[in-house]
C-alpha cells in the first residue's frame, strides 16, 4: 500500500471514529497508535504514542494554557464582569440595539483577559443574555451576538490558539498576539456595524431603553461604572507590558496575568471558597481536555510525518496541480474551513497545520499574518455546525426559550461578517502586521 493511501486511510478512519461520539482524544489516539504499529511494527511502533508526551512536555509555551483558562474561570465564576456589563448597559442603553453593541464591547474586554472563548461564552450567556431577552431584544440576533463576540477570545490577545500556532509555525508569540489586535478590533467593529444597520432597519430587533429607566441612573453612578472598565485594561497591561518589553517571558507573563485576575477578584470581595474551588476544578477539566487531545494529535502527526505527508502535500499543490501561491492559500483556508466545521479544531491545528505551514512559508507568505488568518478560520470553525464549541456551550448555558434551531439559525450573518473580516485581512495584510511591526521595530 502506498504511503499516500495510508495517510488518506488514517484521515478518513479518524473522521469515522470521531462520528461514533467517543471522546475526541481516544478516537485520534487510537488511529495514531494503530497506524504506528502497522508501519513500525515491533521496531518501536508502540512508543510513538508515548514519545508525543515527551514532545508535549518540551513545548514549554503550553504552560500558558492552564493560566489563561484559569483567568477566564476567575472572571466568569467570580462575576467581576458584572460591573463591566452594567457599564455598557447604562452607557449604551439609549441607542437602538445599544445593549447588543455593549455586549460586543464587553466581549472585547473579556477577550483581553483570557485566552479562550469559553469565558466569554459563560459571561455572555449568564450575564448579558437574560438582560437582553428581558429588554425585548430579538433572541436569534442576541444568541448570535454572544457566540460571535465570545469567539474574539482567541483572536484578541492573550490567545491560546495563537500560542499553539506559534509553536507549530515557530513564530514569536508576541508578534502573533499583537497581529491579532487589529483584526480583532476590526471584527468587533464590523459586528457592531451589522447590529446598527439591522436595528436601524428594524428597531423591534433591539429596542432602546426607555427614557425613564435611563434617568434612574445618576451621573455619579455612570462615572463610577466607567471605572469598572479600568479593571480589564489593568489586568491586560500588567500581563502584556512586561512581556512585550521583554522583562518577563511568555510563560511568566501568563502566570502574572492569572495572579492579577485572582487578586482583582479577591479585592472585589468575590473570591469565595466555592468560586475558588469551581474555577480550580474547571481549569483542570478544560486543560486536561486540551492536553489529551493535543497528545493524541501529536502522535497522529508524527505518524503522518513519518509517511512523508508534508512532502506529498507540497508536491500535490505546487508540482502536480501547478497552482499559484494565492490559489493555494485560498484552497488551504477553504479546506481548513470544511474540515474545521466537522473536526475538533485543536486536533485540526496539531494535525493539519504542520502540513500546511511549511508550504505557506515556502510560498513566501508572512507566517505571522497567516497565523491571524488561521485564527479567524478557527473562529468560523468554532461557530459552524455540525461541530462547534460555541454551539455546545450555547446549548448548555442558554435559557430554555432558546432552541437549538435558534442557535443554529443565529450564526449565519455573523459567519458572513467573519468571512468579510478574513477577506479584508487577506487583501490588506497591514491590518494584522502593522502593530507588531510598529512595536517590535
Amino acid at each position, binding site marked *: 500500500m502506498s504511503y499516500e493511501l495510508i495517510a488518506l486511510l488514517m484521515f478518513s478512519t479518524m473522521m469515522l471514529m470521531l462520528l461514533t461520539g467517543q471522546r475526541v482524544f481516544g478516537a485520534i489516539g487510537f488511529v495514531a497508535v494503530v497506524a504506528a504499529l502497522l508501519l513500525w511494527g515491533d521496531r518501536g511502533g508502540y512508543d510513538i504514542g508515548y514519545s508525543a508526551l515527551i*514532545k508535549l512536555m518540551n513545548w514549554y509555551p503550553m504552560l500558558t494554557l492552564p493560566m489563561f483558562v484559569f483567568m477566564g474561570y476567575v472572571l466568569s465564576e467570580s462575576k467581576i464582569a458584572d460591573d463591566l456589563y452594567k457599564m455598557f448597559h447604562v452607557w449604551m442603553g439609549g441607542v437602538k440595539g445599544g445593549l447588543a453593541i455593549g455586549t460586543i464591547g464587553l466581549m472585547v474586554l473579556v477577550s483581553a483577559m483570557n485566552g479562550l472563548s469559553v469565558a466569554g461564552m459563560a459571561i455572555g450567556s449568564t450575564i448579558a443574555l437574560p438582560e437582553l431577552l428581558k429588554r425585548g431584544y430579538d433572541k436569534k440576533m442576541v444568541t448570535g451576538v454572544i457566540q460571535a463576540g465570545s469567539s474574539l477570545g482567541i483572536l484578541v490577545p492573550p490567545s491560546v490558539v495563537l500560542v499553539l500556532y506559534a509553536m507549530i509555525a515557530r513564530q514569536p508569540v508576541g508578534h502573533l498576539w499583537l497581529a491579532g489586535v487589529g483584526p480583532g478590533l476590526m471584527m468587533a467593529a464590523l459586528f457592531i456595524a451589522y447590529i446598527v444597520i439591522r436595528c436601524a432597519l428594524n428597531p423591534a430587533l433591539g429596542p432602546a431603553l426607555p427614557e425613564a429607566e435611563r434617568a434612574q441612573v445618576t451621573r455619579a453612578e455612570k462615572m463610577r461604572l466607567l471605572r469598572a472598565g479600568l479593571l480589564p485594561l489593568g489586568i491586560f497591561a500588567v500581563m502584556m507590558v512586561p512581556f512585550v518589553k521583554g522583562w518577563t517571558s511568555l510563560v511568566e507573563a501568563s502566570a502574572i496575568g492569572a495572579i492579577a485576575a485572582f487578586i482583582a477578584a479577591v479585592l472585589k470581595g468575590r473570591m469565595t471558597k466555592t468560586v475558588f474551588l469551581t474555577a480550580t476544578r474547571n481549569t483542570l477539566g478544560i486543560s486536561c481536555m486540551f492536553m489529551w487531545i493535543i497528545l493524541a494529535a501529536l502522535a497522529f502527526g508524527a505518524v503522518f510525518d513519518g509517511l512523508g505527508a508534508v512532502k506529498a502535500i507540497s508536491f500535490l499543490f505546487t508540482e502536480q496541480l501547478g497552482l499559484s501561491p494565492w490559489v493555494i492559500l485560498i484552497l488551504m483556508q477553504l479546506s481548513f474551513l470544511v474540515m474545521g466545521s466537522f473536526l475538533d479544531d485543536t486536533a485540526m491545528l496539531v494535525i493539519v497545520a504542520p502540513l500546511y505551514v511549511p508550504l505557506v512559508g515556502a510560498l513566501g507568505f508572512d507566517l505571522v499574518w497567516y497565523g491571524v488568518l488561521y485564527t479567524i478560520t478557527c473562529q468560523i470553525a468554532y461557530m459552524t455546525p455540525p461541530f462547534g464549541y460555541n454551539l455546545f456551550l450555547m446549548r448548555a448555558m442558554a435559557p430554555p426559550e432558546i432552541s437549538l434551531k435558534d442557535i443554529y439559525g443565529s450564526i449565519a450573518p455573523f459567519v458572513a461578517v467573519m468571512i468579510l473580516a478574513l477577506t479584508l485581512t487577506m487583501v490588506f495584510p497591514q491590518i494584522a502586521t502593522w502593530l507588531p511591526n510598529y512595536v517590535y521595530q
Partner: protein
Amino acid sequence: APAVLKAQEAIKWRFQTYAGSALGQEVTKPAIDAINAAAQGELEIELYYADQIVPTGELFQALQRGTIDGVHSDDDSMASPTPLRQFGGYFPLATKHALDVPVLFKQYGLAEIWEEEYAKVGVKWLSAAGQDPCNFNTKKEVTSLADLEGLRLYTFPTAGEFLSQFGVVPMNIPYEDAQVAVQTGELDGMAWSGITEDYTVGWADVTDYFLTNNISGAWIGSFFVNQQRWADLPDHLKTIVSSAIEASHTYRNQWYWGGEARLRAQGDKLQLRSIPQEEWKVVEDAAVTFWDEMAEQGEVAAKLVQIFRDYKDVTSKAGPPYTFG
C-alpha cells in the same frame, strides 16, 4: 550486468538529524542525497529534522529500538547513555579547528573507543567529524567575563555545566524553538555554534552581537545507525553509506570554514565583540580544572582526557597554525 534485474523490495530507513531544516540542508542532507542516488533504489533513506519524529531527548532509545534507523547528532545533546556523553558536542577547549577531530579519531584512537562503547548499548557508530566552533551570539553586548553573568543561553549540557561557573544560566529547549525563545524572552542568546549557523538558521536576526572567543574550536558530531539494521544491510550498501558520509565531511568543512570567515568579515547582522586574551585565560585555566574533574568520572573518561592532553601537548609544541600564536 544481468539483463533482467530481480525486482527487489527497497530497504527503507528513517533518519533523523539534530539540525532543523534550514541547517539540515547543509550538514546532513548532502550525505543522505548521495546515498539515495548511489544506492539506485536499493536503499531509500527518508530524512527528518530536529524533533520531527521523536523529541531529541528520546532520540537514542528510538535509535536502539529502530523507531528511527539512523541519527546524525552529538553524544552530549542526544544524552548518550555512554561514558562518552560529555566528550561529544563541545568538550570545553578540547579542539581549535575542525581538522583536529578526524585526527583525534583516526590517529589518537577515539574511533575505536566510540565504536566499542556504542556496540555495548546496541548502536552502530559510523563516523565522527568536526564542524564549527562554539561561539556566543547574544542580545546584550559581551566584552568581558563579567558580562556573561546572568545570561540565559541556549547551550549544550556539558558546555553549560562548564559555563555556569561564569554565571551563565544554561537553557535547554528544542532546537527549532531557540530563535523564537529569544523573541519571547526565554533566552538572551546562544552558546551553540559558529557564525555560519547563526546566519543560516535565523539566530542572527534575533541577536545583535557575536563573541569571537570560543569555548571549543570544533563540534564533534557523529552518524549512528541501529545495530540490527546495519547488520542486515548488504556489504555494497554499507560501503555506499560509509563513503557518502565520509565525503559529506569534506563538504561541511569548506562550508563552515569559508562561512565563518566571510560572515565575520562581511556579515551585517551581528557585530563582532571579543574578550581580551588575558582575561579569556581565566576560561582556559578553568577548562584545565574541568578536564581533571571529568577524568575522575571513570576509566573511559580518564583515557579520553589523557588523549586530549596528549594531543594538546603535540599541537602546542608544533605552534601556529595548530595554536593561535
